[in-house]
């Protein structure tokens, strides 16, 4: 298990970016359907409990809009 935090105000949108959705091996990202202050529609997680904590979304997000913290005992890659 891992804890994913999204910063929707930093996200530049599922439609124009969507990199997190491409790299997530669990296919957990979808559009939130709600516009942020900058006018982009950020992502949300469909099933957070399915996250493996691989951190690919965090490392690939160009706008530092995602943080994945692993539960204790697991090693960061």
């Amino acid at each position: 298990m891992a804890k994913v935090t999204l910063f929707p105000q930093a996200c530049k949108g599922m439609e124009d970016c969507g990199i997190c959705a491409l790299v997530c091996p669990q296919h957990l990202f979808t559009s939130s359907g709600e516009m942020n202050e900058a006018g982009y529609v950020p992502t949300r997680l469909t099933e957070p409990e399915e996250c493996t904590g691989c951190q690919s979304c965090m490392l690939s997000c160009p706008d530092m809009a995602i943080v994945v913290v692993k539960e204790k005992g697991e090693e960061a890659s």
Partner: protein
Amino acid sequence: MSLAEHPLRKYTRPHVKKTTTCPGCGNGIVAQAILWAIDELNREEGLSMDDFVFVSGIGCSAWIPSPLFAADTLHTTHGRPIAFATGVKLGLPRQKVLVASGDGDLAAIGGNHLIHAARRNIDLTVVMVNNGIYGMTGGQTAPTTPRGLNTITSPYGTMEPEFNVAAMVAAAGAPYVARWTTYHPRQLKRAIKKGIQKQGFSFIEAISQCPVQYGRVSKLGRATAILEHFRDHSLKLAKAREMSEEELAGKITVGEFCDRQAPELASQWSELRARLGKEQG
């Protein structure tokens, strides 16, 4: 418990809340790779942002360190960041000097600075964002543009072969040279970290996506389509070395081009200064 802010925010200027890039631009992935490398060096060796001077030229990729990074940043003129960085390193030899800039900036107008800094082996870390195009000015052909691509300055397709910049820098004498793509953020981070640790000229080429200009002219379109292209066409150097030129057409060779030791320029200057100081009293 949800985090109040991203852990890399401690390395960014508080008033800079957003990157300057278009949605999906690879520059943000490269910026993060640099900051994660520094974060590891902070935990392992106690390095901080105060130990760095970041230098960039002109272009979208030149906005990676400035204004984002909370450190000394020099945003210089087009093509000249390595010249500025050389001066900074010789004047402040204890600082880590990292150049981040674009392919047009470092390999076209700034190409000779790059060649000679590699030959001189001055202790700089150069991260070149290669998006295969002049992004900022609207999608003109760069020396790194793949042959045949129609750009706004080559509407019938470029007739020139693309520049293998990493191989050129290795041939010029740089002790550490690596190439990865933005589809490989972990490897990119590791290479940048190694480059910072290396005493000598290190060059990390980050093949990156410009969805707005390159995406348009290549008809690949979205950032994710360009990243899928990187994923499907990347090939490890060790494997590439066994293949013919024809087999390698359209492939992106990734990995470490070299990792070796060589006499470094700034430390030789420091030694000479110390020696002459002693001899002349």
